[in-house]
């Protein structure tokens, strides 16, 4: 009771449930994690997203206690856990490819952590049954891990990591070992289970779709640093750097200097585009500064009739068409050799009674001035 009141007070003050403060991890000369600051709220599902070797797994291992930070602090629910051994932390992890104990049954795997806490046998049995129900694996309680399919193993691993009711649950590439079809189905199933239990969760993944589907917030990691933190929509719509823009979704990137810098608009000279990019929301940057404009393929219009020359317009020819069912992605090669991708809905041409352009046809790409996102790094 006292505990819940204290926790409620803490969350009312807006104090984070988990605070990762300036954590650095060096292996010899290489810096795997380079000064990460991150606050996690209670009951949040947070995804650390990045390509392999970006330091996300090392950060997760430091949270689990398998690695000790070179410097920095990790504070969970008001307690400094930086130096605690893994077996003393109120944190459990679902391992990549699960690490289920091969010599124990499903029930014994789930009971393992509870037995370490010297929980009475009756309570262990009740908790194991509860966990088996949670992941719908009751029928398989006496099976050995090697007798289970990949999806079933994943559910046992989840049950095992939730059995001790950890304050923080860590998921290391939770669905990486499953095939694509099963993965999509399991993503939502996993989120439902986590929300049902109400656990604070940090997951590590290299799969942006997985992160976007499951997480309430995403942190993009590259070379040991957290580049951007935000909701999936924030990160997609307002990337703060080229890495994020290119890593999440697909984009067209144009580099060039700022040539016009008005309070409410900027223009960027893009040699690749062969014209200027006009953006009707200002950035603060000196004239001549090198910046990048990112325009998502779905924001690029494709026209077959000539468009008046000007900013945000370029002429090219259709280089490639990727037909993806409900839409197609046209790869348009500009005079500079730059390929611009434009996503066109399948019914677009038909509704406007236009013959769809095909390979080698001359087309015009353009976008609204509010579409490009200007990036300075």
């Amino acid at each position, binding site marked *: 009771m006292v505990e819940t009141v204290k926790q409620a007070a803490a969350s009312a003050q807006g104090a984070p449930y988990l605070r990762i403060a300036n954590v650095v991890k060096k292996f010899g000369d290489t810096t795997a994690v380079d000064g990460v600051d991150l606050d996690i709220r209670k009951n949040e599902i947070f995804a650390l997203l990045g390509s392999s070797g970006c330091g996300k797994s090392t950060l997760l291992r430091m949270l*689990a*206690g*398998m690695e000790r930070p070179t410097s920095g602090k990790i504070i969970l629910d008001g307690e400094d856990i930086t130096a605690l*051994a*893994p*077996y*003393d932390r109120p*944190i*459990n*992890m679902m*391992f990549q490819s699960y*690490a*289920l*104990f*091969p*010599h124990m049954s499903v029930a014994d795997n789930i009971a*393992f*952590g509870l037995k*370490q*806490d010297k929980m009475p046998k009756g309570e262990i049995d009740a908790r194991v049954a509860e966990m088996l129900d949670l992941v719908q694996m009751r029928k398989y309680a006496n099976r050995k*891990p*090697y007798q289970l399919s990949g999806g079933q193993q994943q559910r046992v691993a989840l049950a*095992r*990591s939730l059995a*001790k009711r950890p304050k923080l649950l860590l998921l290391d590439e939770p669905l990486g070992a499953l095939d694509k079809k099963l993965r999509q189905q399991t993503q939502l199933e996993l989120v439902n289970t986590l929300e049902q239990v109400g656990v604070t969760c940090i997951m590590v993944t290299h799969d942006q779709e997985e992160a976007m589907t499951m997480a309430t917030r995403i942190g993009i990691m590259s070379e040991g640093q957290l580049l951007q933190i935000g909701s999936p929509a924030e990160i997609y719509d307002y990337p703060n750097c080229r890495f994020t823009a290119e890593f999440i979704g697909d984009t067209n990137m144009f580099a060039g200097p700022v040539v016009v810098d008005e309070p409410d608009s900027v223009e960027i000279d893009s040699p690749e585009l062969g014209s200027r990019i006009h953006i009707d929301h200002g950035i603060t940057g000196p004239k001549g500064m090198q910046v990048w404009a990112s325009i998502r393929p779905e924001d690029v219009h494709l026209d077959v009739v000539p468009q008046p020359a000007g900013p945000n317009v370029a002429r090219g020819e259709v280089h490639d068409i990727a037909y993806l069912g409900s839409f197609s992605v046209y790869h348009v090669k500009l005079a500079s050799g730059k390929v611009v991708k434009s996503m066109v809905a399948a019914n677009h041409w038909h509704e406007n009674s236009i013959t769809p352009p095909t390979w080698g046809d001359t087309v015009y790409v353009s976008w609204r001035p509010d579409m490009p996102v200007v990036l300075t790094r």
Partner: protein
Amino acid sequence: MNMSRLLRKLKPGKGAVIAVPYFWLLLFFLVPFFIVLKISFAEQDLAIPPFTSLLQVEDGVLQSLTLYFGNFHFIFTDGLYAATYLSSLKVAFFTTVMCLLLGYPIAYAIARADPARRNVLLMLVMLPFWTSFLLRVYAWMGLLNETGLINNFLMSIGLISEPLHLFHNDFSLYLVMVYAYLPFMILPLFSHLVKMDMRLLEAAADLGAGPIKAFLTITLPLSKNGIIAGSMMVFIPAVGEFVIPELVGGTDTLMIGKVLWNEFFDNNNWPMASAVAIIMVLMLIVPIALLHRYETRELEGKGNA
């Protein structure tokens, strides 16, 4: 896809590959075994070879088949043989236990050493095999003798005035037995420990098990097959060991290998020696069958271990 097609193509050759070791076992294990079995049912005779024939054949017609059970009867009634078998089993058992207690930490340390150093350590375990077994036993004699290196050294530094009795007793027997059989324990244990998935220990720690608890609940059960394999590799040959008890064991050490030698060479009693050997083989078939069962069980299933 390509791999499975390749395997299917190889299938006719598979039988031939398996046939070679089976033929080898048939020729050099099963055939000699039946020869020994035959001799064990014969009587000692003053002839060449020194035993009676089981079959009486006249004019191409089998006249009689004589199976003489006297050898087995003697073994089962004379208490000395039972005591010798028991003593052999006891020596083999304690040798196995000591090899396990000593070999497990060594195998564990080698398996956990970094891969660059691991091969050097393994090489050190196998290095003694490069010298003749007999030579190594003689080396121990030179060390343990009353005038051997150890006693000479201890006396020269004045630590003892009388030579220690290190030789021709149980101490020297077990010392050299464990020395000789230790690699057979370490190697199978190592091969099991080294392929253990280290993330299982991380998972155990993550779930609250300290290092000792994790060892007892994860590492030890998962190396069970290695323990069984190593123990069998030591126990089975140790039961029939002759050279070590003969050269460094006490004069009162009863070992079945010594009895075999005595019957065969000293008493020239081939049938008796054969009967002793047959009973020893039958005694060992039980642990061998156990070993075989565990090995096959390990080969089947357990794809993820």
